[in-house]
C-alpha cells in the first residue's frame, strides 16, 4: 500500500495499467491505460459495446480483471502485495476498498424498502460504523445540496427518476469517497429530468470531486469534463480536452460516432 505523495505533480486518484478483460471468448477490454489525477472530471465516450461501462465496473472490482493493474489513490485494487507476489484479496478486503470508491448506476439501484434517509446513512452507519446522529446531520446537508431535503422520509418508489438518481448520488457522497464512478447516470431518465441530475453533477465537479463518467451526454462532456476519453472496441482510441476531441476528432471511429450523436 504505497501512497503517492502530494507534491508538484498532482496525486493520481485512479491509475489503470494494461487492463484486459474477457467475457468467455469475447475480449471486451484490450489493454486500457488511463491515469486520472485528483479533482479531474473524465468523461468516457463511445458506442455501446465499446467496453466503457465494463472498464468503469473494473475500477471498484464489480468485475474482476484478467490482466493489468488498477490503483485507486495508490492502493492496488483486488490484490495484496506480499514478499514478491500478489495475492488475490478476500471478499471482505475488497469491500473495505470499495468504501473509498463511490458509484452511481444507470438504474439508480436504491434500496426500495428503505426511506431516502435510510438509503443515504446505510453505508456510513452500517458499514463505516460512524455515529448515527452525526451521519444523519451530514446526510441532511447532502440531501439539501442535491435539492431533496423535502423527501427525507419518502420511499424511492414515491420519487421521480431524476429524484431517485439524486438520492443515489447523495448515497455515494455520504461515504466521503475519493472518487465517484458514474455509469450512464442519465440514460434511464425522462428527457425533462436529465438536467436536474446533470446540475448536481456539475456542482460536484466544481467542488473538486474526482469523477469518471460514462455518458452519452455530449453537451455535458463538452461543458464539464476536463478530459474526454473515447473508447472503441475495448481500446482508448482518442483522448484530450473536450474542445479538441469533440470539436476536431482525428480518429475515424470518433468521427463516425460524433457524426451520429451530434445530428
Amino acid at each position, binding site marked *: 500500500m504505497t501512497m503517492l505523495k502530494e507534491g508538484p505533480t498532482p496525486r493520481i486518484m485512479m491509475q489503470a495499467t494494461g487492463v484486459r478483460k474477457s467475457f468467455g471468448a469475447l475480449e471486451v477490454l484490450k489493454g486500457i491505460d488511463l491515469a486520472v489525477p485528483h479533482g479531474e472530471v473524465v468523461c468516457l465516450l463511445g458506442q455501446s459495446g465499446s467496453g466503457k461501462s465494463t472498464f468503469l465496473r473494473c475500477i471498484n472490482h464489480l468485475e474482476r480483471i484478467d490482466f493489468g493493474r488498477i490503483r485507486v489513490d495508490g492502493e492496488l485494487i483486488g490484490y495484496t502485495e506480499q514478499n514478491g507476489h500478489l495475492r488475490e484479496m478476500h*471478499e471482505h478486503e475488497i469491500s*473495505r476498498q470499495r468504501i473509498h470508491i463511490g458509484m452511481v448506476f444507470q438504474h439508480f439501484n436504491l434500496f426500495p424498502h428503505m426511506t431516502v434517509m435510510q438509503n443515504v446513512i446505510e453505508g456510513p452507519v452500517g458499514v463505516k460504523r460512524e455515529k448515527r446522529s452525526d451521519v444523519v446531520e451530514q446526510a441532511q446537508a447532502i440531501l439539501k445540496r442535491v435539492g431533496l*431535503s423535502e423527501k427525507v422520509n419518502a420511499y424511492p418508489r414515491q420519487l421521480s427518476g431524476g429524484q431517485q438518481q439524486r438520492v443515489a448520488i447523495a448515497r455515494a457522497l455520504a461515504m466521503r469517497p475519493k472518487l465517484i464512478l458514474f455509469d450512464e447516470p442519465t440514460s434511464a431518465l425522462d428527457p425533462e429530468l436529465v438536467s436536474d441530475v446533470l446540475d448536481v453533477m456539475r456542482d460536484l465537479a466544481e467542488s473538486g470531486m474526482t469523477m469518471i463518467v460514462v455518458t452519452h451526454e455530449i453537451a455535458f462532456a463538452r461543458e464539464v469534463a476536463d478530459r474526454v476519453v473515447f473508447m472503441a472496441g475495448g481500446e482508448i482510441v482518442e483522448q484530450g480536452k473536450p474542445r479538441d476531441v469533440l470539436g476536431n476528432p482525428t480518429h475515424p471511429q470518433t468521427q463516425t460516432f460524433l457524426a451520429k450523436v451530434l445530428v
Partner: protein
Amino acid sequence: MSRQQSDLIGTDIDQTIDLPIKPARHPGRWVAIAFVILLTAMFVHTLFTNPRFEWSVVGHYFASDSILLGVRRTLQLTAIAMLTGAGLGVLLAVMRLSPNPVLSGASWLFVWFFRGSPLLVQLLLWYNLSALFPDITLGIPFIGPDFVHIDANVLISPYVAALLGLGLNEAAYSAEIIRAGIISIDHGQTEAAQSIGMSRGRLLRRVVLPQAMRVIIPPLGNDTINMLKMSALVSTIAVPELLFAAQTIYTRTFETIPLLLVAVIWYLIVVSILSVIQYYIERHFARGSSRNLPLTPLQSLRKILGFGPRGLTSGSDEKGSAS
C-alpha cells in the same frame, strides 16, 4: 342541435342517443344461486337433524383439558418445526447459492433427501433411530475419547423424533422457497450494496432478505398452515397432539365422529387465525413496494360503514415531511 350543423362536419346524430342503458342480463347466475342455496339448506338441515353428529358430545369435549392440551401441543410442534425449518432453510438457501461447490452440493443433497422421501417414513425413521444407533456419543471421531454418552432411546423421545421429522422436512421445503426469494431480487441491489462496501452477510440481512420476504412470506405462510395439519401425522408415533388426544378419547368411548369433529373445528379455528396473522405480516413487508399500503380489513370495514377519517388517510405518508 341543428341538422345542418352536424352535416357540416360530416357526422350524423345517432338515433339511439337518447335511449337509457340497462345492465346485461345473467339468467344463468340465478340458476346457480338457487342451486347453491338448495345445497346449503340440505347441509344445514342434516347438521341439525342427524342425531349421529352428537353435538352435545362435541360440546362436552370441545374445551376439555386433554383436547386443549392437544391443541397446545399441536401449536408448539408447528411453531418449533417452522422456526427450525425456516432458520435452517435460510442457511441451506445461502449454501446452495454459494460459489463454493462443496457447500452448494451439500445443500442440494439435503434437500434431495428430505424433500424426496415421504414425511411419514421420515418420522418413523427418527422414531426408530435407536434401532440403528443405540448409543449416541460426542467425542473425537474414530480415535478419540468420548465426552458425552447418551442412550438413543432417552435422547430421541417421540416428541424429539416428531420435531426432527417435521423440522428437517420443512427445512428442505423452505430452503427452496427462500432461494427463490433471494434470486428474485435484482442484481443491481447487490451491486449497489457492494459499492458502499457492504459485506456479504450484511448485504443478505439488510438488503436482499427484507425484499425477498415479499416473495417468501406467502408460500411460507402456506407451509405453516400445511405444517399445522401435517403435525397430525405424529399421532402415529404417539405424540399427544390434537388428533392423538381425540383418538385417545374415542378409542375409549367409541364417540368417533364427534371427536373427529372436535379436532376438525380446532384445526379450522387455528388455521383461520394464522391466515389473519399472515395478512398482517405480508402487509408489513410490502413497505416501499407500492405507493400506498392496502387497507387492513378493519380499515376497510370502517370505510364501508363510513366513519372515521382517522383510519383512511394512510398516515405513514404524511408524518414525514422533513425540515
